[in-house]
């Protein structure tokens, strides 16, 4: 009887200590600081590299585009111009205009089977009743390896929708910086 109890305890101890069938793995949870942290097993970091603005107008005659560097206007627009941040501050948007903010981010990704995705922090709210916004990440989906990703934020000024918001729609609006996250994919 005593022997059997000892055997049973020993068996239980073996079960508890061996991890058979539990697939338990060592783990550690970290939230990286602003500066990328390199760990021995790999690295995932992202940093802004450059920003470019383009303004698009639908009016065939438009003095606002004088002095700006022209680019190819897509269908539906009569003018396309590249603008600096200072020029953008002086630009006065009219209904139908579009602003594209093209921001490039360099991603450093090293590590065995390291897969990740890029997400953009959306605008908290539409800048004003007259504006709409949309973010596009290229390339999208699950990524691997180091590369440059492009985030294009499209802001379109449609102006007031109804009679009531006519005055408010033409006020100044502040658009925040584009913030992106690189997050490792689980599987």
């Amino acid at each position: 009887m005593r022997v059997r109890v000892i055997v049973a305890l020993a068996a239980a101890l073996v079960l508890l200590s061996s991890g058979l069938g539990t697939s338990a793995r060592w783990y550690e949870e970290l939230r990286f600081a602003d500066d990328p942290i390199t760990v021995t097993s790999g690295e995932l970091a992202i940093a802004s590299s450059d920003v470019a603005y383009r303004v698009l107008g639908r009016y065939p005659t438009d003095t606002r585009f004088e002095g700006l560097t022209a680019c190819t206007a897509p269908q539906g627009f009569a003018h396309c111009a590249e603008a600096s941040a200072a020029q953008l501050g002086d630009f006065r948007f009219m209904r139908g205009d579009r602003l594209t903010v093209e921001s490039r981010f360099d991603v450093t990704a090293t590590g065995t089977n390291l897969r990740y995705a890029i997400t953009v922090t959306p605008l908290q709210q539409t800048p004003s009743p007259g504006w709409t916004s949309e973010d596009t990440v290229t390339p999208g989906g699950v990524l691997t390896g180091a590369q440059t990703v492009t985030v294009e934020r499209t802001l379109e000024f449609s102006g007031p929708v109804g009679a009531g918001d006519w005055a408010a729609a033409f006020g100044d609006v502040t658009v925040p910086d584009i913030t992106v996250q690189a997050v490792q994919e689980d599987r």
Partner: protein
Amino acid sequence: MSHRQRPRHRVLAAVCVLALVAVVVAVALVPSGATFARYFDEAGDSSGATLSSQQIAATTEGVITPDYGDWNWFDRQTNETSLTVTNSSPTAMVATVAIGSVALTGANTGQASGKARAYVVDRTGAKQQIASSVTTTRTTTQFPEANLSWTLAPGASQKIVVGVESNSTQLLYQRLVGAAGAKFDFRFAVNWRVDGLSSAESAELYPHGALGPNPGDRAACPAGATAAQECRGVVATVKRPVVTVATGSNTTGACSVTDNFDLSHTFSVNTSTLAAYSGLAKTARELQGSNPGNYGSYAPIPDVGSGFTGTSVEVVRQPYEVGEGYDLTFTFVIRGTGGAGTHVPGPNGERATQSPVYTLSMKRERFSIFPTCSVSLASL
């Protein structure tokens, strides 16, 4: 037998309990997706900006002709007023003026009714008749866009002149005298669109029109004006002409011929029978010179006679050959100057006015010693 089996069952139960505990502990130790550590980094650019916007801005102002009293100054022989359309936008705009109606109001409308016609000066500078005869209120139709449409560059303005004139010759100087004070009330609706875009495309961008949901003076809107049109009203008031011409003076006989001793003839026109000026001195000017329209260089009749006496225009034709006849015309205007201080200066500071244009015809047949002459109104 049963006495020996009981401990065996207890051991088996204990083993099972321990095994269950081990399984539970093992499951708890398996890392779940939620707790698995992931690489993460975040970055922001510096693309934030303050964006300013502006409205398409275009305005239409109704300009009422300043009150110059009863004077019809040189460039105010007709009663004109105007709209001024201004494009304050950075893009070219097209203003199309639709004239909704002309109404006759105010004093002495009975004298003006049926005697005056309203017009607008179109893009080519031609007068487009709005109403052939204004009586009370006359609804008009919009002129073709090609005539009353103006493309305005960014920042540009355009004055659109409308006015009232007599509907036949001399009326302004004759029959409209009694119509002083009558007001011709014009109603306009101005439609703005972006140059290069169709009206439909413009309406899509500017559903309320270029100026917002309530552009212009809605009280001035003619019937049928849309909410996207800017409305304006202007009034042209008939003034009593300082220069008046007697009815029927287009074939006046106020001309006489005098034989001179040197076989020349003097043709005299009695100006007192031609045009009446109130409180003004008279002079005359030949209009067949090099610059007949330059009133600033007004001068006495230069080269054809003794000139102007104050009451007559004299043209001396000398000498002549009996065997040769002549058929000459001489056009002139009579100018009134020296208006009293109570007279309001004209728009360009003028203090003088003038008559319609007269034509003096002088004719002599070959071998005849009796020339003939006549005076008629050439035009207004």
